[in-house]
């Protein structure tokens, strides 16, 4: 089987259409994961064991099971309970929840790294819990976490092809439908790989920059 550049030119617009959806899903998923992770990290620190224990178990459970099965769960089972989600939304929720449990660990480490003295100073200044978190702890905890968070967002980007299994028309699904229409697999599948490699390599450059800017390596 020969590589056919004309065919590549012909399918490029369709694949770029898919790239857009892939990037959209990654961005929305990242935002959701950033928020979900913070919520999980804060709930796990709750002094009330009835809150912290179940949250810890649920997070552990989500991290221990495959994303694909969770996507099936959201897309095929929630309708049984009357919640019908469009595929892209179901996919974004799946990605956000799954990676939220990973980012929760990043937040936890970041928060634990804020020195004790900061908490004591906040108490001495008579700040309440909300003020302490908003003005003292989080502003110090978040910048060093940024590279680690970005790392997970890149990982999430590489998981987006799973969304094709719940009928989201992202890059992988577009490539599959092109391949099935023309019975040519070599160009679409290879191009999908190239797209992922190129975008990942760019993201890695961005990540290195974030590490230099925020990571304070070797401080």
């Amino acid at each position, binding site marked *: 089987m020969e590589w056919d550049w004309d065919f590549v030119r012909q399918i490029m617009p369709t694949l770029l259409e898919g790239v857009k959806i892939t990037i959209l899903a990654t961005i929305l998923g990242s935002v959701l994961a950033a928020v979900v992770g913070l919520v999980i990290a804060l709930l796990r620190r709750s002094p009330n064991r009835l809150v912290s224990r179940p949250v810890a178990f649920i997070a552990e459970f989500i991290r221990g099971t*495959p994303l694909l099965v969770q996507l099936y769960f959201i897309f095929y089972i929630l309708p049984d309970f009357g919640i019908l989600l469009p595929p892209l939304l179901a996919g974004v929720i799946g990605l956000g929840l799954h990676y939220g449990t990973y980012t929760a660990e990043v937040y936890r480490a970041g928060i634990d790294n804020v020195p004790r003295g900061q908490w004591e100073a906040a108490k001495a200044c008579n700040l309440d819990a909300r003020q302490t978190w908003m003005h003292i702890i989080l502003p110090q905890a978040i910048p060093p976490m940024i590279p680690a968070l970005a790392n997970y967002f890149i990982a999430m980007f590489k998981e987006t092809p799973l969304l094709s299994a719940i009928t989201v028309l992202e890059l992988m699904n577009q490539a599959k439908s092109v391949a099935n229409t023309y019975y040519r697999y070599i160009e679409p599948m290879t191009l*999908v790989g190239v797209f992922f490699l190129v975008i990942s390599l760019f993201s890695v450059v961005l990540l290195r920059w974030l590490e230099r800017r925020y990571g304070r390596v070797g401080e």
Partner: protein
Amino acid sequence: MIDWSGYVGLMLQGVLVTIELTLMGSALALVMAFVAGLGRLSRFFAVRALATAYIEFFRGTSIFVQLFWAYFVLPLLGVELTPLQAGVLALGLNVGAYGAEVVRGAVQSIGKEQYEACVALNLGRWQSMRHVILPQAFLLMLPTFGNNAIELLKATSIVSLISLADLTFQAQVVRAQTGNTLVPFTTILIGYFALAMLISWGVRSLERRLSRGIDGVRA
């Protein structure tokens, strides 16, 4: 009511395939991790470049794309693989690339004085690696290897998309035959979680066993 007894055997077959994939994939990943990880530390530029290219390629593209490539594109190039072979190949090479960085990091984190001691004892490069560096470094790699094995277990769910009858695939079969989605998908979620717990338990006990007598390695 649906009679579930007939489907239990189907699910158990799925569990066996998933375990088989995880074990074979992990074995390949372990070999690749050491080959590529030590390759990156080689004296020879060509070996270093080859190892780096392998690692960056497999970490930079999605495992999903790699699997489809192995299953749909390789046959066109004359390499015919069964779904199981394609699955083990994609999983092992992908996770092996992540493991390679773990190997490199662990070997580099062994203190300089250990290498100097090897020189002082007149050990060859191979001897010092085999008897001094790796036994210490392996202990540092273990926890991350455990995480990687769980990642691999979760990644096995995507082989259901190339028609390999693993746990996720069997759940889809049960779903198609009974029309019930909740029961099969909940069952496999619990199944994957139990397998993940088993792996983390196994790695923890291996770690305890191997760390006997080498106290103080982990600072």
